[in-house]
Every structure is written in C-alpha cells, then in structure tokens.
C-alpha cells in the first residue's frame, strides 16, 4: 500500500507540474480529471485492503463527482464562453515549473523538521507539497478556471492525505467537504463566466482595488 501511495502521490505532483506547464484550459481540466480518477482508484484499493466501507463510498463519490461531474461541468462552461487558452501568465511557465518543483522540496524540508518527528511517515510531505503547489497554481495564473483547478488540486491532496492517514475519519465530514466543493464549482462557474466575459485584458488594473 505504501508503494502505491508513493506512486499515486508523485503522480499527483507530476500532474500539477504538468498543469503549470500547459496553457490550454481543456488539457488542464482533463489532467485534473485524470488525477482525481487515480485518487479514487487508490481510495478504492485502500478500502478493499482495509475492508472499510467508508473508503469505498468515498472512492465512489470521488470518482463520480471529481472525476466526471466537475470536469464535465467545467468543460461545458468552457464551451459556452470564450477563449480556451491563457496565453500570458503572471509568472512565466518555465519559472513557474521550477518554482513549483522547489515547493515540493520546501514541503519536504518543512515536513521533515516539523511533523516527521511525530508521525514517522516518510511520505507525509506529499500532501503538503500538493497544497503548496495548488496554491502556487492559483497565484501564478490569472485565468479563473485555472485558479479553480488549483483550488481543487489542494482539496484533492487533502482527500489523498485523509484517505491514507485517517481512513476512519467520519464520512459525514468528507461528504460535507465534497458537497462544498460542488457548490464552489457551480457558483464560481457562474461568476467566472461573467468575469471572463467582462475582463478581457489580463493586466487590467482596478483603481478601486488599490490600498
């Protein structure tokens, strides 16, 4: 199980770096779908190994909601509106790939000096790295769809984390988290669509947002 967790975890990290590289929104969303499906499969296997119904339900929920429903919903939104790629980034892609990579190292170092002394789980730095990377994905891009994907990457990593470390976490909480995620995606899609229509230039400055 540990090896599988490692493979899934590092696959997630690679996926985020790949998202950092891409400029086509569709590819980024599909990458997210793939990574969710992998996480769901992992939760499933974990559930079978530990014989835990909780994890099986969680895996099913993950695959339906994160793997299929949300990406499809986002792609549908994408078709309705506008440009499907983001040509200019706040941080240049090459630099952002490297920064994303160093966030992984940072997470490893931070984890090693803080939590490792308590948990003694070597691979515990992966979720931290993913959270930092997701945050950086939000910061480094100006496109709202990508920012939303970054947010979902952060949530995904939490699911991986929780599924691996605390399989006995009450299902109602995880269900609530998932419900919230759906809500965030639905609501923000409405806002995003109008926003992307209204805000064409990326570097548009808002005088009213200063100070």
């Amino acid at each position, binding site marked *: 199980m540990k090896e599988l967790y490692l493979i899934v975890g590092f696959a997630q990290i690679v996926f985020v770096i790949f998202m950092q590289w891409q400029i086509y929104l569709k590819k980024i969303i599909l990458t997210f779908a793939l990574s969710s499906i992998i996480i769901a499969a992992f939760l499933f296997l974990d559930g079978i190994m530990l014989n835990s119904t909780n994890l099986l339900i969680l895996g099913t929920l993950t695959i339906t909601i994160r793997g299929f429903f949300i990406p499809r919903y986002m792609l549908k939104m994408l078709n309705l509106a506008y440009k499907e790629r983001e040509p200019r980034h706040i941080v240049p892609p090459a630099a952002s790939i490297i920064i994303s990579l160093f966030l992984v190292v940072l997470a490893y170092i931070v984890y090693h000096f*803080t*939590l490792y*002394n*308590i*948990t003694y789980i070597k691979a515990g730095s992966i*979720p931290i790295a993913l*959270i930092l990377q*997701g*945050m950086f994905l*939000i910061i480094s891009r100006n496109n*709202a769809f990508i*920012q*939303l994907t970054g*947010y979902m990457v*952060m*949530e995904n990593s*939490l699911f991986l*984390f*929780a599924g691996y*470390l*605390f399989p006995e*976490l*009450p299902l*109602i*909480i995880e269900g*609530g*988290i998932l*419900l*919230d995620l759906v*809500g*965030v995606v639905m*609501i*923000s899609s*409405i*806002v*995003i669509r*109008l*926003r992307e229509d*209204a*805000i064409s230039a990326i570097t548009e400055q*808002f005088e*009213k*947002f200063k*100070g």
Partner: protein
Amino acid sequence: MIYYILPILFPFAASIVCLAKNYSLSESASLIASVLSITASLYILFLKPSYINFLYIDGFSKIMLVIISAIYLTTVLFSSAYLKHIKNPIISKSSYFLFLNLFVFSMLFSVSLNNLGLMWVGIEATTITSALLVAIDNDKTSLESSWRYIIIVSTGLVISLVGIMLIYASMHTLKITELLINKPSHPKLLVMGAVLAIVGFSTKAGIFPMHTWLPDVHGHAIAPVSAIFSSILLPTALFGVYRIIETASFDSVRIFALLLGVLTVVFASIFLISQKFYKRMFAYSSMENMGMILIGLAIDNKFAFLGAVILLVSHAFAKSSAFYTTGNILSIYKTRDINNVKGIIKTLPFGAYSFLLSAMAVAGAPPFGTFLGELFIIYALYLKFGIVSAIAVLIFLSISFFSLNHKVAKICFSITPEKQVQKKDEVISSLIPIINTVLAFLVIFFVGFINNILTSGMLK
C-alpha cells in the same frame, strides 16, 4: 430540545419557499423567518446550554445566534427597501432572498454544531451561498471582487481543513465536547493543527496575512450584503477561531492568535489613513475591529473574553448601521469616492447623524458598547503583557479613530453642492440604521447579562 434548532430551521424553511421564484412571496417569507428566528434565539438565551449529541450551544453560541438573527432581520428589512436600486442583478431578486436565507442558515449552522469538521463545512458553505450576493450588482468590479472572495477564502479554508485534520490526528475525534475534555495524544501536533486552522479561519475573518479579499468585497458588494458580511460573517469565522483556541488552549497558540490580531489592528489602522472610498474605509475599520476581537479571544482572561463578545455584539450593530447608510448615500450620489460626497447633512438629515454616530461607534467612542469592549480588552492586555503593549495598541486604535471620524465628518458636514440640496430620506432605509446605532449603544446595559450567559455552563 427542538428549541435549539429552531433558529436554524426558519431560514432554511424560508429558502425553500424562495424556490417558488416569486419576489413578494420570498420577501415576506424571509421577513417572517427572520422575525421567528430572532424570537427563537432570544428564547434560547434563557435556556440551559446544550451539549447533546450533535449540538453544542454554549453562552458564546447563544449570543452568536442572537446577533446573527438580529442582523438577519435588519438586513432583510433593508434589502427589501434597497433592492430597487439594482438595475441589472446577476440573479433574480427572489434568488437574492434565497441565497440570503441560505447564507444565514449556514452561519447559524456553523455556530451551533458539535463538530469541528461540520463547522468547517458550514463556514465553507457561507462562502458558496454568499458569492453571488457579492456579485449581485453584475458589473466588472463586483464580479472580480466576488471571484477574489471565492478563491482566496476557499484557499484559506483548505488550510484550516489541514489544521482540523491534524487536530483529528492528535485527538482522534472532532466532537467539540470531547475535544475540550480529552487530552491530546500529540500536543505538538495539536498546536500545529491549531495554528493552521487559525490561519485558515482568519482568512474568512479578514485577519492580517490573507485579508486582501475583504476590502474588495466590502467596497463593491451592495450595502445590505456588506453589512451582513461585516457584522456577522466575520464574527462567525472568528467564532471558529475561538473554538480552535479553546480546544488547543496552549500559550503558543494564544500568542500566535494574539500576534495576528495585533498585526491586523496595526495594518488596518495604517491603511485607514489613506482611503479614498468610503465603503472600503469601513472595510478596513471592520478589519481593525476583528483584530481587536481576536486579541480579546486570544488572551486567556475573563475580561478579555467578555470584552471581545461585547465588542463583537456592538460592532455588529454599529457596522451594519454604517453600511446601510453607505447604501443610502450611494443610491443618491452614485459614487464611492469620499471626495465627491459632500454635505449629506442637507440631503440625508437623519442619515447623516446616524452615519456619524455609527462611525463613532465602530471606532470605539465612549458611549457605545464598542468602547467598553475595547476597554476590557486593553485592560486584559495590560494585565497580561504590561503597559507598553497596551499603549501600542491604543495608539493604533486612536489613529484609526481619528482618520475614520475625520473622513466621516467631512462627508457629513462639508458644504453641500447646490444641485443636491433636497431631502431624500426614505423612511425604512433611514430608520434601520438609526435603530441599529441605538442598539449598539444599548449593549452597555446588558454587559452583566452577557457575562452571566457566557459564564453559565462552560465546559472548561
């Protein structure tokens, strides 16, 4: 037992009625629900604290229930008067009430549950339900601020979810009743989780490092939404912070929270000096007040806690009053710029006085409850950390006091341009701010009562 869930149920029922998509129906349903829910929460005040399976209602929760329902009521009243100024809403006006009810529902939900995880779910749900309320104006800036709100707050809340998971790892439970009693298996893990959770919930409360969404949202949302955000949403998030501090009542956690609070006060008061837009100015004033409340919650002292709650209550009334009046000003002057709004004493005579008084109240002027709250907090700060820190905080408080009141006085009493000299006061929309300002003053008579409620039946 059913009484405890009543205030939560009413807004939910009203939101179901709102699904009918009938404007007047949803308006009256919301009004009825808010009246019922304030009645129910006032009734709960006199009941015993409840620690049953999934509800955890202690003194602080009771006061939060009352405040949330009270502001809910005034916001519904003010919204029905104000909504006619919105020309091109992003959602229909009945959906506005739908989301308002759901928003209040999720806040009431968050403050009364006996589970940190579900409390997180509730606080995240407030983001979802309120995002469209922020964007209701449907122009570029409000859409942009709504999106910033969603993404920054959600990101912050993910951090707090990590914290909650770490708390779970150390305590093996998320039930607040058990968290308060049990001993942690890994105190260090608990501290780390608490710190992360505090950072996350503070994002929602507009506390320093991740506050950037707050001025944008308050500056561009419509007045009733700004009011409900500033007066009860931010305290609800601080309520989450308080639960975390209560759970992990270590010195390091408390110092960390205190530091965040102080930084927020410093930062907000410095930024208050240079504000050009009046709604944004009040947003920074909210930040400053939240910083003070957080300081009060962080200090492990009876006075500080009482002061924080009093400040929270009276700030809720005063700030909602101030924001309602900004809505009235905006609907007449059509500008958010302080320099273009002159002499509202002539155009909005009632509005001008309530505006001035509420501005003094949010800045902590003597007759109001905020003054008392800040006094308690500073006294507690003095007891714990000596005179220097108390004076330092006082200096920043007075900076914000002078810059805020100077600007508000300029808006109220400068010479009115000729073309605008005519009375435009409307009855309901100018009455509500006045009532709220008076309530902010009346809080001082209830200090003993609040203290009784807070201290009766505390678990820890």
